[in-house]
C-alpha cells in the first residue's frame, strides 16, 4: 500500500510567543491522497500550526517528520523545496510584479542566466488554467487585480510548484462562489492524484464537502481528530468551545426600557465591499458587542465611524443629529466626543519611545494647553488622575511607554482617550495579548464608564468577553450584520454558530 504511513507527522510540537503559548504539545498526521481539515476558534493555534509546517517559524520543542525523517525548515523556501507549499491569505504576492512573474517567482525558467519570458508565460498560463483562472491575464500587475483574482493567482502560484503537501489557510474567504466551485474541483482532483492537503476554514459547509478527516484545536492544544461526517455540527461546536467558564465579569445592570435618543445611530453604512448596509444604535450606558469571525468588517466599521475611511455611504447620527466625520481629529472634537482604542497599540496607539506622560496627553492636548502652550501643572494633575483611575503600574510618568508591560501599555492607550472624557468609546479587540488580571480590570472599567453615561462599541475576538461584558451583540459576517443577540440570548454556542453562519435551529435543537 502506498498510503500505509503518513507523509508528515508532528509530535509534541510547542510554540510560545513571549509568555503566550500559541501551541502546546500538538501532534498531527497528514496522509497522501486525503484532505485534512483543521477547525478551531480565533486564536486556537491554527495559524501557528501552519507557520510551523511551512517553515515561517521554528518550534520550541517537538519534531516534525517528513517521510519518517525529522526535518526543520529554516525558511519558507526550505519548506517549499521539501514539497510543502502554503497558500496564505494574500500575503505572499508581490504587488508590483506581473501575474506571470509572481506565479514563477521561486523558480523561473531561464536561458543564458536571464529569465525566459516566453517560457515563463507558458508555464504561468498552464498554472492559471490548472486553477481554473484562465480569465486572468499573465501580464497584469498583481496590484491592479481585485482581491478575489489575487487569491486565484496565489492558488495558481502554489500549484505551479507541484507540491506534495498543499496547505490552504482560509484560501476561499475572498473568492466568489463560482471560483470556490472551480477550486473545489481542482482540490478533489489533486487529492485523487495523491497529494496531501491541509485545509483550514471557518466555513462548515466547505469542510463538509471536502474533508476526509478533521482535527479540532482549542487554546493551542489538539482536542480531537475524527473522520469526516462522524460528528454533527453541534458536537463540533462543543469541541471548539469546551472551555471552563470563569466569572470574571462585573454584573450587568438590569435593562431599563430606554426611549431616549440614541447617543450614536448608524443607518445603512457601507464602504467598498467590506461594509454592507450596517445599521445600529447605541444608547447612553450601553455596551454593544461586535462578534463574528475575525475580518468580517468589524475593524472597518470602527475605522469608518472614527473618520479614517473615505467614501463611506449611509448616515451617522449623534444625539439624533446627522454628522459627517471626516477625520479622527473631528471624531474626537467636543461635540462628537468619540474615542477609538486601536487594535495594534504599538503602531496606532502609542509612541513607544516617548514617556507615559507624553503619550497620555497626545489626544487631549487641546484640553491641557492655553494659547498653544502646554500647561504642565494641569497636565500633571490630569495624567496622575488617569494613572490612579486605571492603576497603571509605572515607577515614573517620565518612563518610556515601551518599557511597561503589555497590559500596562494597553491601559495607557485607554487612559489617553479617557483624558478627553469621550461620550462614545469604540474598542477594537483591546484585550488581545494582555494578562487575565488586567483584562478583568478593563471589564470593570468599561462597565463603570457605561454607568457614567458613555456609549460603548466593543469588538472582541474572545467570545467570553462578548458574553460577559455586552448588553447586546451584533454578529457580522461578510460585512453585514447577520444577527443581533440580546441579554440571555448571548451564549457561546449561539455566538459561534452565528459567526460561522450555520443554521441556528440545527445547532440549538440537534
Amino acid at each position, binding site marked *: 500500500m502506498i498510503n500505509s504511513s503518513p507523509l508528515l507527522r508532528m509530535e509534541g510540537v510547542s510554540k510560545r510567543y513571549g509568555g503566550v503559548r500559541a501551541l502546546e504539545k500538538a501532534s498531527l498526521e497528514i496522509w497522501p491522497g486525503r484532505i485534512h481539515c483543521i477547525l478551531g476558534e480565533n486564536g486556537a493555534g491554527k495559524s501557528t500550526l501552519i507557520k510551523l509546517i511551512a517553515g515561517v517559524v521554528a518550534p520550541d520543542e517537538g519534531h516534525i517528520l517528513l517521510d519518517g525523517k525529522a526535518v526543520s525548515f529554516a525558511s519558507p523556501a526550505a519548506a517549499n523545496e521539501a514539497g510543502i507549499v502554503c497558500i496564505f491569505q494574500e500575503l505572499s504576492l508581490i504587488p*508590483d510584479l506581473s501575474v506571470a512573474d*509572481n506565479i514563477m517567482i*521561486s523558480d523561473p525558467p531561464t536561458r543564458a*542566466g536571464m529569465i525566459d519570458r516566453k517560457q515563463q508565460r507558458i508555464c504561468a498560463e498552464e498554472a492559471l488554467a490548472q486553477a481554473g483562472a484562465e480569465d486572468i491575464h499573465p501580464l497584469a*500587475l498583481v496590484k491592479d487585480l481585485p482581491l478575489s483574482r489575487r487569491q486565484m493567482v496565489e492558488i495558481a502560484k502554489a500549484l505551479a510548484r507541484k507540491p506534495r503537501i498543499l496547505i490552504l489557510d482560509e484560501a476561499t474567504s475572498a473568492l466568489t462562489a463560482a471560483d470556490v466551485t472551480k477550486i473545489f474541483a481542482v482540490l478533489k482532483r489533486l487529492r485523487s492524484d495523491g497529494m496531501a492537503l491541509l485545509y483550514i476554514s471557518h466555513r462548515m459547509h466547505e469542510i463538509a464537502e471536502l474533508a476526509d478527516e478533521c482535527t479540532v484545536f482549542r487554546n493551542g492544544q489538539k482536542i480531537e481528530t475524527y473522520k469526516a461526517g462522524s460528528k454533527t455540527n453541534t458536537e463540533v461546536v462543543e469541541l471548539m468551545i469546551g472551555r471552563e467558564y470563569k466569572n470574571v465579569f462585573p454584573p450587568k445592570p438590569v435593562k431599563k426600557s430606554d426611549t431616549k435618543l440614541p447617543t450614536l445611530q448608524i443607518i445603512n453604512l457601507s464602504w467598498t465591499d467590506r461594509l454592507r448596509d450596517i445599521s445600529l444604535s447605541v444608547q447612553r450606558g450601553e455596551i454593544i458587542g461586535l462578534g463574528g469571525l475575525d475580518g468580517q468588517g468589524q475593524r472597518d466599521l470602527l*475605522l469608518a465611524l472614527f473618520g*479614517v475611511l473615505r467614501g463611506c455611504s449611509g448616515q451617522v447620527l449623534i444625539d439624533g443629529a446627522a454628522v459627517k466625520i471626516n477625520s479622527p481629529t473631528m471624531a474626537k472634537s467636543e461635540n462628537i466626543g468619540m474615542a477609538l482604542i486601536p487594535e495594534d497599540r504599538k503602531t496606532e496607539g502609542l509612541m513607544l519611545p516617548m514617556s507615559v506622560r507624553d503619550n497620555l496627553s497626545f489626544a487631549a492636548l487641546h484640553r491641557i494647553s492655553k494659547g498653544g502652550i502646554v500647561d504642565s501643572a494641569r497636565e500633571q494633575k490630569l495624567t496622575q488622575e488617569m494613572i490612579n483611575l486605571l492603576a497603571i503600574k509605572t515607577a515614573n510618568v517620565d518612563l518610556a511607554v515601551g518599557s511597561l508591560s503589555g497590559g500596562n501599555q494597553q491601559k495607557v492607550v485607554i487612559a489617553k482617550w479617557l483624558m478627553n472624557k469621550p461620550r462614545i468609546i469604540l474598542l477594537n479587540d483591546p484585550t488581545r495579548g494582555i494578562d487575565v488580571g488586567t483584562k478583568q480590570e478593563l471589564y470593570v472599567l468599561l462597565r463603570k464608564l457605561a454607568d457614567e453615561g458613555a456609549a460603548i462599541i466593543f469588538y472582541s475576538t474572545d467570545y467570553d468577553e462578548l458574553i460577559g461584558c455586552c448588553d447586546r451583540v451584533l454578529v457580522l459576517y461578510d460585512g453585514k450584520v447577520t444577527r443581533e443577540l440580546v441579554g440571555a440570548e448571548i451564549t457561546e454556542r449561539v455566538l459561534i454558530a452565528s459567526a460561522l453562519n450555520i443554521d441556528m435551529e440545527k445547532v440549538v435543537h440537534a
Partner: protein
Amino acid sequence: MKDWRFWFAEQRGTFMAIAIFLMMFVIYISNHPAGFNANIVQTASNKGVLLAFVAMAQALVVITSGIDLSIGMIFTLTNCLASWLVTGSPLQVAIGVVVVLFVGALCGAINGAVVIYGRLQPIVATIATGAIYYGIALALRPTPGGTVDEILADALTGKLFGFIPASLVALLVVVLVVWIPFSRSVTGRAAYAVGSSEQAAFMSGVPIKRAKFITYTLAGLLAGIGGLFLTFFTYTGEAAYASGNAYTLFSIASVVLGGVSLMGGRGSAIGAIFGALAFRTIGDLLFVFDFDPLWQPLFQGVVLLLAVSLSAFGLLRIRNRLEWFG
C-alpha cells in the same frame, strides 16, 4: 487587453521620463542660436552622461526600496583614484581602468554588506560609508591634480563618425552590459520583489540577501564608471566635497523624475537615465532663455516638485486614510 498595454502600463514611469526629457530637449534645441548640430549634442551628452551613470546606480538601490547616500562619494573617490592610475603605457591604463571599476564595485559591496549583515538602515549606513569614502578620496588627492591618459579620454568624450557622441555610446553599452542582463535575471527580479514587498518576497522564498548585495555592488560599479568618466572630462582628480554631495542629491532627484518609486519595486534604470538627462537640460534651458545661472537651483526645484506631484495623484484614490502613511 492587448499584451502591449500591460507592458506599457508597467513602464509608464519610464515613458513619462522620456517624454519629459524630449519635450525639454526640443525646446532647448529649437531656441538655441546655433540650432541642432553635432557639437551641441556632444556637449549636452557629456554633461548628461555623468549624472546618468550616478542616477542609474541610485535607481538600482532605490528599486530595492533602499537609498545610497554614498553614491556621490564613490563617484568622487573613483575620480581621484583614476587620476593616479589611468595613465602610462596602454597596459597600465587598462589595469588602471579595471582597478578603478573594481574599487567602485567594492565600495558598493561594502554598503551592501553593512546594510544586510549590519542590519542598518540604508540611509544611515551609507552616510557613514560615504564619509569614509570621501576621507580616502581626500587622502588620495589633498589638492586637485593628477592626470589621465588623454588618448582614451578624448576618444570616450569625442564624436564617433564625426557626429555620434562617444559618451552616449558608452552609456548605451553600459545599459546593454549591466542593466539589461540584471533586470532580466532572477536576481534582478528578486530586487524588484524585495522593494515591492519584502515580507511577501520572504514568504515566496526569494533570495533577498543575494538580491540586495548584488544591487548595491552594481550601484558601486556604476558610480565608479561615472567617476572614471568625470576624470576623462576634467583630466584631473579632485576630492570635491560639495560636488560629491550634489551628485548624490541630484541622483535621487533624477531617479524620482525618471519614474522610479522611492517606495521601491517600480521603475527602471532607463527611466533614471532620462530623468538625469532631463534634470541636466534644465540648466541648458536657462542658458538659451538668457536667465542668470543663479536661477538654476530654483528651477531644478520647481521641475522636481512638479514631477513628483504628478506621481502623487494616486493618493487621491486611497479609501483608507491609514494607507497614506504606508
